[in-house]
């Protein structure tokens, strides 16, 4: 049984917000609702990191635990979904969620809360698969089409991975094995490679070892150079 998960590689995320845009476009999300957001830590400071956040489809989901009308359920794929016909828009799930995933569209003149809306892992909801009703309430059901969430598939740097947890964990492990970690993947030396011995110009040949020379000291960037 698959357990669908997202994994965001903070070393790769460039805060382009294409995941946010892809989600909004794919599901025709209204104004004021962001099923996915990009959060940047230490914005503007060298070494800043960004991460794309949405519903993490928790194995032990607190939103399911606190919902007073029991409108949440979990699919065979481990995707946490809810029934909007049952949701009363109380916002209790928003308090319980550590990621701020539940969203509440502003409906009516006084901005009262609408039904809760959140990331569905592009798995729709409890309406007939790929029906108009499902699209209207929950967005497109890409899983039923054999596709992965639009945000992950649209990610330009493949920072955001989506799919079966075991599979994407293997992809991430493979990636870290090739590129190194920490300071090995960030900065001038990684982006442009270290000059080889003998004064060769920077820029490795295609097919060279990714991630620069492992274990080598980082090169000094030029004056006024890049973030490290």
């Amino acid at each position, binding site marked *: 049984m698959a357990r669908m998960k997202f994994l965001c590689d903070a070393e790769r995320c460039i805060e382009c917000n294409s995941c946010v845009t892809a989600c909004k476009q794919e599901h025709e999300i209204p104004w004021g609702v962001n099923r996915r957001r990009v959060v940047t830590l230490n914005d503007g400071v060298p070494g800043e990191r960004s991460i794309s956040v949405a519903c993490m489809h928790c194995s032990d989901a607190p939103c399911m635990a606190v919902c007073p009308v029991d409108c949440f359920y979990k699919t065979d794929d481990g995707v946490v979904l809810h029934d909007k016909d049952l949701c009363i828009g109380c916002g209790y799930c928003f308090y319980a969620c550590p990621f701020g995933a539940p969203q509440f569209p502003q409906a009516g003149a006084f901005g009262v809360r609408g039904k809760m809306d959140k990331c569905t892992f592009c798995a729709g909801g409890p309406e007939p698969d790929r029906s108009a009703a499902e699209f209207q309430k929950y967005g497109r059901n890409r899983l039923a089409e054999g*596709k992965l969430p639009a945000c992950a598939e649209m990610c330009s740097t493949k920072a955001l991975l989506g*799919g*079966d947890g075991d599979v994407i964990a293997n992809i991430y492990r493979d990636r870290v094995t090739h590129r190194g970690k920490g300071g090995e993947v960030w900065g001038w030396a990684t982006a442009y490679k270290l000059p080889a011995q003998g004064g060769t110009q920077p820029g490795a040949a295609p097919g060279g070892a990714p991630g620069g020379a492992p274990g080598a000291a980082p090169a000094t960037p030029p004056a006024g150079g890049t973030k490290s």
Partner: protein
Amino acid sequence: MRACTLSLLAAAAALALAGCGERPQVINYKQGKYQGKPDTPAYANAPFNGNRQQYENTINTRTQSQNEYVRLRD
């Protein structure tokens, strides 16, 4: 005395066996109390028509398209 020893042994055995029990690591809150409409699995309809194995293979193959190291290797 013998009965007391036997009961003590039985209690100790029960205590020791209790340690072998496996409890769920994840709490399933209100399991089975979902009040909404039932949903069908993603593979229930076309193009998978209930073939779960085909669905999982398709998804896993597609997941690998996110791994550029697979594409870069010869």
